[in-house]
């Protein structure tokens, strides 16, 4: 079976709705099928990657540490739209410093988050075989 390019598009903030958590669950399940997986974070989806999330006072599960595990499942292309960050007064420094070990480069630790412009993301989306929206 040939490897297909799968992209998960995340456009919702965490906690306010169940979309962000459900997307993460599906990504982890899908990772078992060894496809070429990437994630896109646009609009309020960029808030899913905010660092320092602490849900202890709201009685909900803090699922943000799970994004750290994605690298171990060979999910290491997390595209964050620059324009979405800017509209929200955010920079990449406000996001979790997610990394993966590159097996093709002596297992060097490299950042998983790649900030891309709308134009660049548009081209990456165009290359996909399957796009799943959350």
């Amino acid at each position: 079976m040939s490897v297909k390019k799968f992209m998960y598009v995340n456009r919702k903030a965490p906690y306010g709705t169940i979309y962000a958590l459900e997307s993460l669950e599906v990504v982890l399940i899908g990772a078992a099928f060894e496809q070429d997986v990437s994630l896109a974070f646009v609009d309020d989806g960029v808030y899913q990657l905010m660092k320092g999330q602490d849900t202890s006072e709201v009685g909900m599960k803090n699922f943000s540490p799970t994004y750290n595990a994605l690298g171990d499942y060979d999910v290491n292309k997390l595209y964050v739209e620059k324009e979405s960050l800017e509209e929200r007064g955010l920079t990449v420094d406000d996001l979790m410093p997610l990394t993966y070990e590159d097996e093709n480069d002596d297992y060097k630790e490299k950042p998983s988050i790649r900030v891309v412009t709308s134009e660049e993301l548009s081209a990456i989306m165009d290359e996909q075989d399957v796009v799943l929206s959350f």
Partner: protein
Amino acid sequence: MAMLHTINKSPFERNSLDSCLRLARDGGSVLLIEDGVYAATKGTKVADKVTAAMGRMKFYVLGPDMKARGISEDKILDGIQVVDYGGFVDLVAEHDNVQSWL
């Protein structure tokens, strides 16, 4: 009559903030909760209209909902007061009525 307005939706995804600011009378208060807390942060495309509305209404943001979303107090616009759950109860008690902008 002093009204407490609560907003629980992101200002980037819904128009709850806009509708509230358009229809709320001067002298009332706005409490940003859940995904509404994003409206309280600095440097966003809605920050100017929130700041402008502070001249006629008091603004509050719920601390536990900020913390859940990784928003620290230094990211909150000047003039917005952070409250905890007890503060939420006090605001409800101090106002004549509550209107939820869902």
